[in-house]
């Protein structure tokens, strides 16, 4: 089964450039503003959109994304509303891939089978679930594949050659390489180490490899994108959103533009990169 993710990476490969992947939290700072922001992303240069599913206890996230999740939950966001957000986005855009990213518990409580049906029909293309390693594949990964959704796995600096095949076995769409050992928004990635790691992963798979964690500026995005099939930026966008809010954490007239402008600048960085030869 071909998803929007597969189609998008095939198009980009033809153009010889890397993907710019954005991450924002669903419902941050409120559901309506969140939809307006996500609708603005493709025009600003996002090739793939990751949307965070808010969770009270995001144990792999740094303070920025933790706070984004709490803002969303405070504004009444739920998993059901996250799917409505995707549905709202799909009204005007049937091409940009949407990947939901988060933690397993809200999906488990929603009910795995019902979630997969509802996510597929809302227009979700892939899932990244931080706390589901290959050892727990029968929980969600295998059912998701059956339902026609990509299950995108995280590979990390601690995933050695021996373990890599297990991590890649049921991965589809793309591989998300976490460039540092750490939480989101932490130290910057070192592009030569990233280049080596991506080459190592590519020896084991034909899937595109996108790199995230630690990319904040157009310059880093360009450096990383020149070694990978995509660069993911999350915390920097979430911070731009947060800085546009009023003292009570509410959206202002500047919020949508603040995110769109940074997206455009980062996208320019990625597009300036020479994609590494396959």
């Amino acid at each position, binding site marked *: 089964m071909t998803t929007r993710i597969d189609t998008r990476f095939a198009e980009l490969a033809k153009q010889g450039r890397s993907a710019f992947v954005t991450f924002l939290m669903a419902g941050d700072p409120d559901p309506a503003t969140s939809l307006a922001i996500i609708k603005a992303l493709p025009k600003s240069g996002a090739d793939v959109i990751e949307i965070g599913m*808010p*969770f*009270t*206890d*995001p*144990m*792999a*996230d*740094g*303070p920025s994304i*933790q706070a984004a999740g709490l803002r969303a*939950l405070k504004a009444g966001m*739920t*998993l*059901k509303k996250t799917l409505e957000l995707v549905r709202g986005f799909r009204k005007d855009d049937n091409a940009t891939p949407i990947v939901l990213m988060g*933690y*397993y*518990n*809200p*999906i*488990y*409580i*929603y009910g795995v089978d019902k979630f997969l049906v509802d996510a597929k029909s809302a227009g979700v293309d892939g899932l990244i679930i*931080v*706390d*589901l*390693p*290959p*050892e*727990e594949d029968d929980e969600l990964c295998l059912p998701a594949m059956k339902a026609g959704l990509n299950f995108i*796995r*995280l*590979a*990390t*600096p*601690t*995933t*050695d050659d021996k*373990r890599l095949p297990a*991590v890649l076995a049921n991965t589809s769409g793309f591989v998300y390489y*976490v460039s540092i*050992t*750490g*939480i989101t928004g*932490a130290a910057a990635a070192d592009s030569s180490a990233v280049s080596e790691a991506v080459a190592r992963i590519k020896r084991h798979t034909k899937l595109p490899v996108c790199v995230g964690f630690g990319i904040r500026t157009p310059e880093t995005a360009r450096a990383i994108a020149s070694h990978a099939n995509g660069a993911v930026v999350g915390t920097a966008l979430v911070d731009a959103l947060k800085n546009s809010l009023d003292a009570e954490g509410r959206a202002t007239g500047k919020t949508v533009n603040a995110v769109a402008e940074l997206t455009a600048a980062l996208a320019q960085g990625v597009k300036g990169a020479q994609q590494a030869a396959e």
Partner: protein
Amino acid sequence: MNIAKPNSYRSGPDERGHFGIFGGRFVAETLMPLILDLEKAYTAAKADPAFQAEMNGYLKNYVGRPSPLYFAERLTEHLGGAKIYLKREELNHTGSHKVNNVLGQIMLARRMGKKRIIAETGAGQHGVATATLCARFGLECVVYMGAVDVERQQPNVIRMEMLGAKVMPVQSGTRTLKDAMNEALRDWVTNVHNTFYCIGTVAGPHPYPTLVRDFQSIIGNETKAQMQEVEGRLPDSLVACIGGGSNAMGLFHPFLDDPSVEIFGVEAAGHGLTQLHAASIAGGRPGVLHGNRTYLLMDADGQIQDAHSISAGLDYPGIGPEHSWLHEVGRVNYLSATDDEALAAFQLLSKLEGIIPALEPAHAIAKVMELAPKRPRDHLMVVNLSGRGDKDVPQVGDILRGKK
């Protein structure tokens, strides 16, 4: 609920760390290789007689084991029913059962060549035990503690700092044990190359629930032998308090296949089960958090809810996965005690036996006050006195003075 009874209640978990549907390894990929290494290191250590011998030496001469099994004569007379024995874990070095597990994990960390130890703590008992053994073995120690708990358990914060540990107050979320655990996991994922996470209870990703249980089972094994010596038979019932559930699991596990032994776990009912509380089995349902599937307090969307207990050590919205399983198969009865009941028990034990319990086991004593009078005088009841109350003296003093 109809779940087939297993042949043994002591054979779990399976090779993937499952107790029935509970347990598992729900962690970020970054941590997975280390968790697999830990499992290997633990299996090797268990098979190594030198490991056990070294541990026994420290348990005897450093921790002060075996801990006494003490007949609480005046409490027994006062309640007028079952003969009550206290398993005196509060007499261990560092003042609670926590040290049994920490010793085992620190010895594993040394075998694995890890020089930096991190831990989460609620009441501070696990933090103090970890800081103590890190001092003893010259290891760096960082303890994550919710800012609310830092406030209400000051004596333990001071102790940890005296022992050379760095105490990191956690400001995120509800600023209690759950958030301390999130923050410890964030540290671990960042410093995985040199850091060992010393988890304080029978929870977290496999193999933690198993290895913590095994290190704590010395409580139940000693109890069995001591009861045999003084009464010539098995006890009739066991009672222990449960936050994550390590002191309870340590007492219960060796008795799970003795069908004549009734077993009671006591969760913290806080202000009451219809209000804010920390009783995951009474008020929760199965979900996934902190590396395992288990009973959790959460809302309809799967968001984790705030727990509340007067006792920082029980103030956690989850419970160890093996307890969830023992609940579902019906081997252990899970009860709960409120803040007020625990406070009354705290005072009763102090006045009748001259033993000031920690607020955590005061919850167990509170249920003993209900269970013992309904049982005959030849009924032998063991309650795990898992920690001493020194750390709670300022907090309880304030509450009692405020009430008067």
